[in-house]
């Protein structure tokens, strides 16, 4: 169900914890699975649970608790904008408006070509460089301006 590269990465995570505590690796295993699949389908979550030898419900609890897991398909690029107070003071609202205009979608929507999904998020712990967004959770782009957003979008194939 997951590629052997993903499984190697998961094994590396499992090795970080004491023996008999494979469950500790469930967060990273789900992250690795999501990178490979784009989102977490029920069978992916259950595969991860079986692989780590934990009850399926234990993996479900984690997948549904943490905000960065996607339980429904998203576009090829998920753009997540922080809208919390510090970022808002620093212009997050105009970033959101610019993105919504340009992509023609609102929050939690995907463009019709399946390329972009737009999300809002809570604090990303980088307020000094706001306004900011992440691309597929893991790449952060900071000090956004319309020109910079254009450049970012153009760079996403």
């Amino acid at each position: 169900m997951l590629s052997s590269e993903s499984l190697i990465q998961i094994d590396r995570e499992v090795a970080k914890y004491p023996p008999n505590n494979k469950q500790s690796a469930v967060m990273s295993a789900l992250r690795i699975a999501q990178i490979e699949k784009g989102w977490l389908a029920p069978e992916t979550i259950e595969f991860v649970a079986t692989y780590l030898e934990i009850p399926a419900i234990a993996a479900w609890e984690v997948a549904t608790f943490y905000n960065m897991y996607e339980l429904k398909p998203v576009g090829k690029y998920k753009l997540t904008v922080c809208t919390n107070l510090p970022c808002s003071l620093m212009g997050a609202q105009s970033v959101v408006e610019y993105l919504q205009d340009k992509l023609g979608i609102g929050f939690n929507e995907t463009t019709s070509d399946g390329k972009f999904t737009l999300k809002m998020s809570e604090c990303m712990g980088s307020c000094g460089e706001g306004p900011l967004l992440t691309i597929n959770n893991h790449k952060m782009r900071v000090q956004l301006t319309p020109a910079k957003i254009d450049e970012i979008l153009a760079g996403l194939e």
Partner: protein
Amino acid sequence: MANEVIFHSIHLPESWKLENYLKTGGYDALKKVIAEKIPAEEIIAQVKTSALRGRGGAGFPTGLKWSFMPRQFPGDKYVVCNTDEGEPGTFKDKDIVRFNPHQLIEGMIIAGYTLGATAGYNYIHGEIFECYERFEAALDEARAANLLGKNILGSGWDFDIHAHHGYGAYVCGEETALLESIEGKKGQPRFKPPFPASFGLYGKPTTINNTETLASIPYIVKHGGQKFLELGKPNNGGTKIFSVSGHVNKPGNYEIGMGTPFKDLLEMAGGVRDGHKLKAVIPGGSSVPVVPAEIMMDLTMDYDSIAKAGSMLGAGSVIVMDETVCMVKALERLSYFYFEESCGQCTPCREGTGWLYRVVQRIEHGEGRQEDLDLLDSVAGNIMGRTICALGDAAAMPVQGMLKHYRDEFEYHSKHKKCMVSGV
């Protein structure tokens, strides 16, 4: 005194590389501890002298916390570093991991040695994945140089550190939720007692400290607790990193002595953005009560001074707001945050944060009712102190602070169905 303890090498190119950390005296403290076999009691005594207080928000004296750890207890024991920085306005730990990861690693190793720990974990906030990767690379460098892992520097002592990546849950910054999360569970805080020093990660004795707290340890070991203390003021030792965001010309992190006047910090951050006037400051992250400009301009940046003004230094996260800010709107956004992030375990927080958000929202949107301000007071008061962890208090305190200082703006919104600040 700026950048004395933690950001001392931040100006160097690739300051995060081991070779560059070593050039600035990095790992000297660890080498000294191992070569001189400094007893744990002696290190704890120095940390106590330093008056280092936990930088994660609560300000608990670190030396005292370390003395609770049952070092002689047989079996596994853990040191856990809290880099789950998700409190709006806080972004200092990110820069420590990004620019000086080895000082944090050195601090964690010394903590592990002092506390008799067998392993360490660093829990890193979800969205800063690039910092997580950098931290892992630094761990690899340290292992390759025998500073970490088996038989550290030939001492016969084994200690390893691993990074654990969060995936988006503010509550996991709370130390026992964080432990649950490392165990691979949803992040719901544990009831205390038992405290982590007796029942922590995997049920073993555990000490949890903030990133900045642990990164301060090498300095204290190298220069002595007294020197660290003197960088700050009594009971508030050392330098502190202040994260300044919002309406300033130069947002960013500023490492300065504890007790520095707020107006000096504001000046370092370039002052209030062009042509605007300071209205208010949230001095310690979104969870602490707001302080109006007139009061703030007379305060110094340390735990005791900010507490006297009815707020908290928290993690040193300074959110600056100018005269264009509507306090109702600001509170609406913060209340949404706590509503969204409540883990749902305790009824007062799960239900109360929803009430707070919905009531502030209707006031902001011109649907406020006469009784709403009393209702907010009552809901906030009924959350305070009635939950397992402090997320409930964190949701209530901003509401109480706003109503204390800016009640007129809330009343105006309710009565006139428009904003006192913008007029619309």
